[in-house]
């Protein structure tokens, strides 16, 4: 493991990899500060380039972009009361009040440093989890992976912010979409409409670009006017910078709070479907509960910013653990990441965690260094970066459209893929508007072939009673109890609302 750690570190800082990490981190930060363009947008935009890259630079590029999005989103949450990404929503509670008191630099400095420290904690948590995961994955064969995938999809559908029925529809539709193409076992064409382009199934890149990039572009276009808020920083760049350094110092002074909130984030990251936003709110609640000055929360308490920002970056370490160990992504960003691994030819699961542990460490260092780059850039470029939020949708949309269409085409040099991106863009936009979980659909789509393959193997190996083996049975019971409990609580709440009415 030490060998893997050293190898991962030297790969991350090597001249072949580091420039991609830098470019990815800057790109992620820029996307993060533009409200309306989520972290998924940044990751989706990076995916088409992976086809021409080696695994090392590809991982660095992808995770570099992913790791700094939250930092950029934190900046806009504080400066413009508009979170760049959903995971920064908790920062809105105390960030903008601090800005209104003339402490914008202090809040952004604390947010940037907390993000970095949170990511570092998440990475360390993952390192500590690796030996445990190496043992656990050995118990997971096809029957276990099949039931685990269903469990993860159920968690994503239930714990997501959207309505349960709609999320289940989205998840199952994603699984169904993965069935398009020639069945590897029987050579039977399924749902191809006789089109040659669909024989290999729907390509991952245009589907991801459609669901998360084209859909956001349509949303931006419909919203019109400015992408972000209109507030401006009242301080000079020098004064802001001074405050930022003080904010960084404050984050380090509150190290115990950072540690606790990061632990909350990393633990919640392990649970598929929870994601960063709930972790940030739970951490915020904890910071408030454990603070000596509870009354000032919501009125500009720096602890509120530190707690939520530390948690939303620490989530990544935990989320990465289940993704790389079992190949089961717990969120849409992990789904895109898993798709990126497929493109780079990396196999998740026991192989990666046992024989390619250097790749796992490369991921960790990419996340840590990506956050460090984001912090350093944020230190000096808060004022100019904040201007990116003033970009009008009318300017952004044509530019993004050109780039996204080029990305969709570039993978297979196919106009058909652009058509797929448009179709999924419309679908993604409608899903966003109507509250259907795009994360559940993507995870269903990414997991679809693994679900089918593992079901086939499970039936071949253990017959139809594979569900009665101890681990699959336990996982199936957890799935049913979890689903049943949530359905029961919905019915109960409905009754309560009726009774009150």
């Amino acid at each position: 493991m030490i060998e893997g750690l050293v190898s991962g570190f030297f790969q991350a800082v090597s001249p072949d990899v580091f420039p991609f990490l830098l470019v990815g981190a800057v790109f992620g930060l820029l996307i993060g500060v533009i409200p309306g363009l989520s972290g998924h947008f940044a990751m989706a935009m990076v995916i088409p380039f992976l086809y021409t890259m080696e695994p090392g630079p590809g991982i660095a590029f992808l995770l570099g972009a992913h790791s700094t999005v939250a930092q950029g989103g934190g900046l806009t949450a504080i400066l413009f009361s508009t979170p760049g990404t959903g995971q920064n929503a908790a920062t809105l509670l105390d960030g903008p009040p601090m800005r209104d008191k003339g402490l914008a630099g202090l809040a952004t400095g604390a947010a940037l440093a907390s993000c970095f420290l949170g990511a570092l904690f998440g990475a360390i948590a993952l390192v500590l989890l690796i030996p445990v995961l190496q043992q656990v994955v050995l118990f997971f064969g096809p029957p276990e992976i099949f039931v685990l995938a269903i469990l993860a999809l159920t968690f994503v559908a239930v714990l997501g912010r959207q309505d349960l029925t709609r999320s289940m529809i989205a998840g199952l539709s994603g699984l169904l979409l993965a069935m398009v193409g020639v069945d590897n076992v029987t050579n039977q064409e399924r749902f191809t409409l006789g089109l040659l382009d669909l024989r290999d199934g729907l390509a991952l890149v245009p589907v991801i670009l459609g669901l998360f990039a084209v859909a956001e572009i349509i949303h931006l276009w419909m919203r019109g006017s400015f992408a972000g808020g209109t507030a401006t920083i009242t301080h000079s760049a020098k004064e802001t910078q001074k405050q930022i350094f003080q904010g960084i110092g404050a984050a380090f002074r509150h190290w115990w709070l950072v540690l606790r909130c990061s632990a909350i984030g990393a633990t919640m990251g392990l649970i598929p479907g929870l994601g960063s936003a709930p972790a940030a709110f739970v951490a915020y609640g904890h910071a408030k509960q454990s603070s000596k000055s509870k009354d000032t929360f919501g009125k500009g308490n720096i602890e509120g910013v530190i707690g939520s920002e530390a948690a939303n970056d620490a989530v990544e370490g935990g989320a990465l653990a289940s993704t790389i160990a079992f190949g089961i992504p717990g969120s849409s960003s992990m789904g895109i990441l898993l798709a990126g691994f497929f493109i780079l030819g990396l196999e998740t699961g026991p192989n990666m965690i046992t024989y390619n542990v250097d790749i796992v460490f490369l991921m960790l260092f990419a996340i840590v260094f990506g956050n460090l780059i984001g912090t350093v850039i944020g230190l000096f470029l808060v004022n100019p970066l904040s201007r990116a939020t003033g970009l009008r949708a009318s300017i952004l949309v044509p530019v993004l459209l050109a780039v996204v269409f080029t990305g969709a085409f570039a993978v297979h040099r196919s106009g058909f893929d652009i058509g797929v991106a448009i179709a999924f863009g419309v679908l993604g936009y409608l899903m966003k508007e109507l509250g259907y979980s795009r994360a559940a659909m993507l995870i269903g789509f990414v997991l679809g072939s693994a679900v089918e393959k593992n079901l086939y193997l499970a039936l071949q190996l253990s017959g139809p009673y594979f569900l009665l083996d101890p681990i699959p049975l336990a996982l199936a019971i957890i799935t049913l109890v979890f689903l049943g409990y949530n359905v029961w609580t919905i019915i109960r709440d409905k009754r309560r609302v009726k009774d009150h009415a």
Partner: protein
Amino acid sequence: MHDEQHLAKTDNRVDAKNEPDKITLELCFISVISLIVAVAFISALGYEIVSARTPIVIMVPLIILIGAQFVRAIKASRIVDVSSVLSTVAKGNSKTFNRAAGLIGWMAFLLALIIVAGHYVGIAIVMFILLRLISKEELLFSLVLTTGVTIVIFVLFELGFDIELHRGAIFRIWAGDAGL
């Protein structure tokens, strides 16, 4: 946290009741999805058992859930509102629908242009139209941005990543290659 989630879900439904546009959109959305799934289900019945097994296992609960959601949407809607929204859209008086359909139309036009005239010509023309004609940006700004982005894409994809973008059917036929 669960209580908050369920409260939010309940709130969503209350909001939805006040939004005939969204209810109508959802009814249309669900109708199209159910049609697609129904066709897929019938197709799957004709496949070999091994190939049909997983899709059917997925589609059975999917059809039940779609049915349940359709009933919910119907219950939350009023026929008068739905028909009013549909007739507004059909008459071309819905600004939201027109704006979204307009952008999707431009996307389809961009795809057609890329196939016929090539990638660079396509993105340059559509970018310029969206910037100058639709969004009324200044002429010089529109020209500079269009040219700049096209050059950046060329440098990034062709020189940086060695990815040759589509030159267009006209160019390829001219060059003696009939493929699109």
